[in-house]
């Protein structure tokens, strides 16, 4: 049986893992390798790592850390943050991380997405878009970890990126990030119905039912989440968790 992927999305900041709320107020969670080992033991479907400071501080991807991650995690892995050259992509794929996630640079230099897809194959190239409602209530794509408005409409941008080779679109709602109030299903539906490429939805998940809604109602191919897998209880105590395969089977059913 084919099952939609459920993906913990982990944020790196100065080589530590953090979790944000609406892209602000990062809470420190712990050492990335320890947390990766726990997720590996829980046999998660896939893991995504996003270095939220790499582009902002003009830093290179943390290759050493990624190498350690890849030797501890035996599931599909994606990395995003500060990727700007084919050489970066070659290095990351060589470590055993099969997806590169590109956000700010896809806006700055869209031709790079085509080059990346020609070089690595579309299925290794994920374009990530951070979306927020602007002051006129319209969805808009932001880059640089939510700091920079682009004026781009997420649906148009997603279609353009899919057409030039993005094998997958990572769609993150800044307004829902860390809030655990459920996904922005309207946003997911708009983007997922406009492209043939798989969409990974992220931002707002609290329960398995939320994950299910992103896929069944929103049309996402995969459900990503942060807080849901790293916090527990009203005081947001750090505790790594992941639904059991039985819970996921019940949710996504045959």
């Amino acid at each position, binding site marked *: *049986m*084919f*099952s*939609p*992927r459920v993906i913990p999305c982990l944020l790196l900041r100065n080589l530590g893992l953090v979790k944000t709320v609406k892209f602000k107020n990062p809470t420190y969670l712990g050492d990335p390798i320890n947390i990766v080992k726990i997720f*590996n033991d829980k*046999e998660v*479907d*896939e893991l995504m790592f996003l270095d939220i400071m790499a582009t902002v501080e003009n830093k290179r991807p943390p290759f050493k850390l990624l190498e350690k991650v*890849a*030797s501890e995690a*035996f*599931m*599909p892995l994606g990395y995003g943050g500060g990727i700007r050259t084919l050489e970066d992509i070659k290095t990351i*794929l*060589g*470590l*055993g*991380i*099969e997806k590169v996630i590109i956000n700010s640079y896809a806006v700055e230099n869209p031709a790079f997405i085509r080059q990346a897809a020609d070089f*690595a*194959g579309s*299925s*290794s190239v994920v374009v990530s878009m951070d979306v927020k409602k602007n002051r006129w209530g319209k969805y808009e794509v932001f880059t640089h970890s939510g700091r920079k408005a682009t004026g781009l409409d997420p649906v148009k941008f997603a279609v353009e990126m899919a057409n030039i080779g993005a*094998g*997958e679109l990572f769609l993150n709602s800044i307004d829902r990030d860390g809030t655990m109030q459920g996904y922005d299903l309207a946003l997911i539906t708009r983007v997922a119905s406009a492209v*043939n*490429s*798989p969409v990974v939805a992220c931002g707002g998940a609290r329960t398995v039912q939320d994950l299910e809604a992103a896929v069944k109602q929103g049309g996402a*191919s*995969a459900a990503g989440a942060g807080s849901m897998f790293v916090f527990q209880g009203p005081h947001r105590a750090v505790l790594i968790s992941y639904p059991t*395969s039985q819970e996921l089977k019940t949710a996504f059913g045959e």
Partner: protein
Amino acid sequence: MIVVVDYGLGNLGSIANMLKKIGAHAVVSSDPAVVEKADKLILPGVGAFDAGMKNLETRGLIPLLNYRVLEQKTPILGVCLGMQLLCKRSEEGQLPGLGWLDAEVIRFKFDGNIANLKIPHMGWNTLTVRQPYPLFADLEAENRFYFVHSYHVVCADRGNVLAQTNYGFDFASAVVKDNIMGVQFHPEKSHKFGMRLYKNFTERV
């Protein structure tokens, strides 16, 4: 010694990581002298069919692989594109494949009520093992593997289909002919199930 054949395409890092984890004696190499000495071979691969064949060709590996696999019967496991290269041809490219299996590779096509299935087939899926075989020892009852592919293998001889998987319809997700094995999924990215499969390849095949 297992040699993971490096022909410039693919998931070498992750296969090497998993072989190391299970304690297998393995090297990644494109050196014909090393391939010459392999007890077992793994043909990895991610990317386009023609790029794969061209890279094998320019490294001068095709005659050597033919000799090692067809004459000397060295066990070989093709993974993902590596499985597709075992076949005669692919819809994806112009170049002939290695042709060791009487099979061809075609693109997923969906119509009717499954027309909305996304291509590539990307994600976790299960296998139905059709015949007992050491590669799938302890994996018949429960398994789950990670797939990423837009093309799939069609065997002329159904007897070569070792396992099948459903994505819109049943397709061959693992094949076997004598010492030649292929899997469409990525065992190196499939947790304990993938570890079991590589362990089986290392110890039981």
